[in-house]
Each structure stands twice: as C-alpha cells, then as structure tokens.
C-alpha cells in the first residue's frame, strides 16, 4: 500500500471521540462542516465502551476504486506521488468507486443530494495540495492519526525496545 492515514493503537493514544478529524477534513476541503463531505469515517464504539474506530482510505496499490471509475483519469485520478484522488469537476457521482472499495465500510462516500451537481465521490486525498499535509493528522488533538510512513507510535516502540 502507498502511504495512507493510520489510527494509533490504544496504547499510544486513545481516540476521545471528538471527531475533529472529520470536521477539519470537511472544513479544509469544502469550507464548511457536513457529515456528507468527510473523507475519513469515525465510528463510535458499541454502547458504553467509548472505544472508537476511524476508517480511512488505505491508498491500495491495486486501487480498485480507480479501476472501477467510468471516467478514469478524469474523475478518479492518480497523481505523481501515487495518491488516488477524486477530481470532482468530472465526477458524475455514479458510486462505482465506492462499491469497488475492498473495505467495509467503504472508504469512499458519495454525497446523496437532490441536486445532481452535488453528487460527488468524497475520498481521502491525503490533503495532497496542502503544504502542511493531511489536516486530520495536523489537527487531531491527541495525535491519534498519522501518515503511515511517519508513525510516531512505531518510533516510540523502537525507542522503548532500545
């Protein structure tokens, strides 16, 4: 897999359920907050556990979402760094990419709207145009998220072992 967002193991940092990740994702991409436009997915733990999950696009090497796109390279694209991203201008909201995602739940969300123009696939693009990198990583108050090639919890593990 190419680099992608990963959630920290509990022993390193516990997700408090603040969903800052979802919110800032929507804020930096859209300029507003909406559950429809997030590109990573918070799932609250079962009742009374307070143990939450965050589902993210894994940027698969075989990128089935890209392969399934009827407007490949126009709507679902791959950039020079191998990041699979959606060019929304050309996305027709058919949802084939979301269905092709090999993970459950699908890591791609297609906006449901009465307005056809708003029906677009929303998928993590690692904030590829942001100089600061992924907003969810930058703004998680508890460092629960990281890019897979820069995992602080693995660094700590190595330090502990040494």
């Amino acid at each position, binding site marked *: 897999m190419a680099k992608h967002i990963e959630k920290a193991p509990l022993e390193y*940092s516990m997700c*408090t359920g603040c969903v800052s990740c979802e919110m800032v994702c929507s804020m930096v991409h859209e*300029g507003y907050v909406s*559950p429809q436009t997030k590109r990573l997915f918070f799932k609250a733990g079962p*009742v*009374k*556990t*307070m143990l939450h999950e965050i589902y993210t696009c894994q940027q698969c090497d075989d990128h089935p979402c890209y392969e399934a796109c009827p407007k490949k390279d126009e709507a679902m694209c791959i950039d020079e760094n191998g990041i699979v991203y959606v060019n929304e201008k050309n996305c027709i909201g058919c949802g084939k990419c979301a269905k092709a995602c090999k993970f459950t739940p699908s890591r791609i969300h297609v906006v449901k709207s009465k307005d056809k123009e708003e029906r677009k696939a929303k998928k993590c693009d690692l904030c590829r145009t942001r100089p600061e990198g992924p907003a969810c990583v930058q*703004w998680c108050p*508890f460092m629960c998220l990281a890019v897979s090639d820069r995992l602080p919890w693995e660094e700590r593990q190595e330090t502990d072992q040494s």
Partner: protein
Amino acid sequence: MQRLDGYAGKILRINLTDSSTEELSTWDYLPDYIGGRGICNKIFWDEVPKGVGAFDPENKLIFMTGPTTATGIPTGGRAVMTGISPCTLPEQYSYGSIGGWIGTVLKYAGYDGFILEGKAPAPVYLLIEDDKVQFLDASPIWGQVVSVTQESIRLAHGADIHSMVIGPAGEHLHRNASITTSNDNTFARAGFGAVFGSKNLKAMAFRGSGKIKAADMEKVFELRKTVGRPERQPNPPVMRESMGHVSNSFPHQWKNGSYACSPGCNSRCQRLLMDSKSPFTGGKVSQTEKCVSVLAFNYTYEHPWGASLFVLDEKNPRTLGQQKSFPHGPDKTDPDWEICSEVYKGDRMDLWGPDFDRGALMMELANEYGIDKWEMIIHYFTWLAMAKKEGLLTDLDFGMEVDVENPAFVRHFIDSMTYRTGIGDIFAEGMARAIRTLGKEKYGDTIYQGRVNQDGVRLDIPVSLEAAWGYSAHWQGRGFQSTPKWLWVANALNTMVNTRDCFNSGHMHVTPDDVRQFLADGPSYSDLLIQRVMENEGASMIKDSVTTCEWQSPDIVWHDMELQMYQAATGDDSMTKEKLDEFAVRSRLLYRAILMRNFGRCRDLEAENVYPFLTYPDPWGEVDTWDEWNDTVDRYYKANHWDPATGWPYRETWERYGLKDVADEMEKLGMLPSPGQAYQRKPDPSVRQEV
C-alpha cells in the same frame, strides 16, 4: 433579520398530541437572543403561561444549540434544554446544558433547536432525518434501560444514528430522571427525563446530512489552536493505583482514559473509568467518573478541591476552564501561588467507606435507569447514611435493612424508587418532597452528629443536605465541598436567583486580588463580590447561548473568547463585548420575568429559600446571620437595579435592555415597583436561631 452564518435557520416545533410539526424561523429571535438559553427563554416567555405544571401537556421542553455548534469551533458542541422542571421545589422553569452529538446532528438535519409540546396518546419515539420527522411506536422499547434502548435504536436505524433516551426512571416520572445521549451525556439536574416520560416520549433519534458554515474559517482554525493550548499530545489510557481524590483516596487498580463529549471539542475530560464491571451484563463498561461520582466509591470525607478551580492566575496551571497544565508548570515564586494552590480536604463525614464495586454499582444503576447521579449520591444516599446513624429510620419500612454499604441494599433502594415500589414511591418524588412527606423537622432537620472538621471539631449538619429549591448542596460550603465563606456567599446569591443547582456553567471565576478584597471587605459586605457574582451569571448565560463548554474554555484569561467564537461563526462583526454582556443581562432579565409571572418569584421567597442552609457552620465555623444575609441580598438587588423590597426590576431596568413589553406585562400583574419603596425587613424565619 439579516441572515448570519453558523445557524441552520429553523426551529422545529413538535406537537406530540397530534403528531404534527411546524418550522419556526430562527431569524425571528436574532440578534437579540443569540441562541441556546437566550432563545429558550424568549420562546418560553412567549408561549407558556402561568399555571402550567411540569407534567402537564402544556409544559414545553425547548432545546437549542448555539451559532458555534457544528461549525468546528472548539467547545461549541454543547446545547441547552429548558422547561418546567419537576424536581425543583416548587416546580419552576429551569434548564440544563449538555455535551454530546445531538446539537451537532440536529443542525446537520437543518434545525437550530426544537420545541416539544403536548403529550402523545401512547409511547412514541421520534426519528428526525433531515426535514423528515416520524412518530414511531415505542412500545417495544418502553420499559427498557438506557443502554438497551440506545442499542435498539442503533439496530433499527443504523450505527450512525444519534439518540437521546430515557430509562425506566423517566417512564415512572421519577422527578430526578435524566435524558441520556448515545455517547452518554445527560440532561440530569433538571429532571427533564420525567417530562419526557409524562409526554409518553421514550427517545429521540437524529440523522442529518446538511452543512453548517462558519463565516470565518481561518478564525475557526485560529480558535482551535488557541483553545487547544498547550500543544498536542498522545492520550494513552493509564493504570491508576488509587481511586478518589486526596483524603478520599483508597487503593484500587483501575484504567483511566480520556474522552471528549462533543463533536469539535479539541480538549478532553480526563476521568473515563474504563473496563469496569457492569452489574447488568457482567461485561466491561466504560463510564465517566467525574466530580461527584468519586464519592460513590468513598464518602469518608467531603469532596476535596483546589482553590485553583475558582481563583485564577495566569501562572497557575489548573484553573477552571484550563484543564490542561501549562507546559512550563506552576510558577511557585509567584506571590499568588499560595492562594491559588490551596487544597481543601473537606470535613470528615463517615457516610460510607471505600468499596469500588458498590460505587460502580451505584453509578451503573443511575446510568441505566436514567437518574441524576448527583442527587442519587449527594442527597439520597447521604440522607440514608446519616438518618440511619441518627436512628431515624426505625419506623420506615424499606423492605430490607438500610445499609448504604451493602450493595444489595443499594440496588434494592434504587430499584424501589425507579419502579415506585413500596416506600420507593415516596422517594421517586425527589428527596426534598420525600422529606416533606415524611416530616421535615424529624427527617430533614435532625442534626447528624458525625461531621468533624480537619481540626477535630464536631460541626452541625442536617441529615438532609438540601441547599435550595429542593437541590442538594453543591459548592455551598458544607456537606459536599468545604468552601470558604466568600465563595459560599457568592454561590448562595447565584443559587438564590436561580431555580436549580447553577453549576452547569456557573462556577465563580475570580482573581487572587479579588479574594484579598473580599476578605478585606468581609464576604457579606463586599461590593466587589456582588459585581463578580453578576459578571459570572452573565458569563454563564453567554456560554449557554453562544454555546461553549465551561470546563474546557479558557475564557477566564480570555475575556472575549465567546465574542470571537460568535463572530467567527456568524460573521456578525457588529457584535461587541458590550453588546454580548448586554444580551446576557437581557436574557437573565427574561428568565427573571418568567419566574415572576409564572411562579411568583419575589425577595421573600428567594431570601428565605436559600437562608436555612447558611445557618449551618462551614468547616471554619462560619455561618451567615439573617441580617448579614439580608444585607448581602439588599446589595445584590440594588446592584442589579431591582427593588430591594420585592426583588423585582424597575420599569427603567426592563426598558434599558429592550424589554418594554415585559415591563408593561409586569405593570398589569402589579409587579412593577417604584424606586424608593419602603422595605421592612422580615424577622428571621429560620428554625435555627442559634448555631
């Protein structure tokens, strides 16, 4: 009204009697009433006349978010509910504030708030998905405990549904019944769970797909950074070796985690008790163990606390509103360090000894049945413990031997009042009403002989820790927290003009210099103390309206934080700190107008309600005399431009804040005093003439 960002723009009116809905425009209430409690107060004033009781279908529960909610502004996830409270004694208009997801998801669904009115002919729950509202049959979940109800709703409507539900206590109209959200936040202190029950409303479930836009996204990120001080850090759960604080600490291994109750909160609450054993399933549960819950495990001493909760110093690392430590730690060379760092251990009470399993049981039952934990621990069980030791319970049949240290009795008693069996039927009316039914002089006012201060001196305390309006003590100087006189006098004033325990967002915030001045003036005669109380009441109203979380927002050193949040959310740059303060006074006045018109609020009622508890000594032996207390009340009313004889605002006061219509109504009701009206102070009504 010019449309502002940050709002959804609509308020949903839900009539449970005929299953109808109607949409109101939020803009009709802006900019004068901001959001949250501000708009709630206005709606209640406009719509609920005198004579309505808590369980009448005409009672309305009004739920409102603020302009910050769902915008990404940190701490803005909170929301407010108001209505006539069944647990206030007598029943009065009250309020609660809550974290959790409901406010945010409601805004995604397109509404800033909702009004619940009427009564469903049979148990229902509401499903609100965007603009679609369904009234669904609740008979399959009626009777279920909170977690089962929550899970049933998730199974029926999907894991991404957010709910708020009542448990059996609400269904049986227990006056301290709570409403619990699907991430375990509660509206508990106002007993609104019983109002849900009275309306045959078991639950509300929400899903929204809309968007909320803040006006100034750059500013929102700046606020996130500032509120999030210090820098980000990992948050691993840690094993603790002891439970409780300071004097109540006892050895126990437990896993301590952190959680954030609301979407967008970029801070944390640090007392998540993880993996404790559920008395229902035997499995593991995680639940919050904050503040009062500590005493479920061990009530040998009153709740210990640090002055830094109230007394602010920039260099002090843990003031209220800044739960995180400053990276550099405390500056102990600071001359204010001593005053800020003082820790009050509290008086020895000997109510029950350390027992983790019994405490976890008490908390879990409160969670599952949907009962206010505070009243459960601080009023019901303290009373059972003290009354038993004073031999008062021999004539009462509890169905088994009263023993607060016996888990079987804990469960038996909570069961009996939840389901109103046997003597539990009396206690389901709330502790204050139960005591009056049993006979207040014996069952409420008998002195408990087991209270001893840190110097070994025995001090009087009644077996009922009722402080005011039927509520148990909270920062009232004795029984629960041993606050010094300047603080309990301030809190008594705040409580006096309130209808509930006012510490949802109403903790006093003062500086070390303020404290020095209070002590120099004498707490009962300090104009500065009055001024700080009024400012604090205003700050509380602003927090509950904008909305923000008192426990996470550092406004104590950042006085225009709410203003900046409001402006970032709405884009309304015409708002100023002065205007926001003016709003706070207007909204407080409207709250007072409701209490006057609907419930006959006046000076005598207020001063006499609060006074009895002030006659019991604090840990240093300090009390308030009737004259001291009334002198303080005089100053407080005058500072508010209210008539000291009646406690009613003058016409000029109403009109100064744009409430001429209220002044006219008060005139018709004969509640518009003239300045300079003579006032003859009443004699001390207390049964305790000597302390």
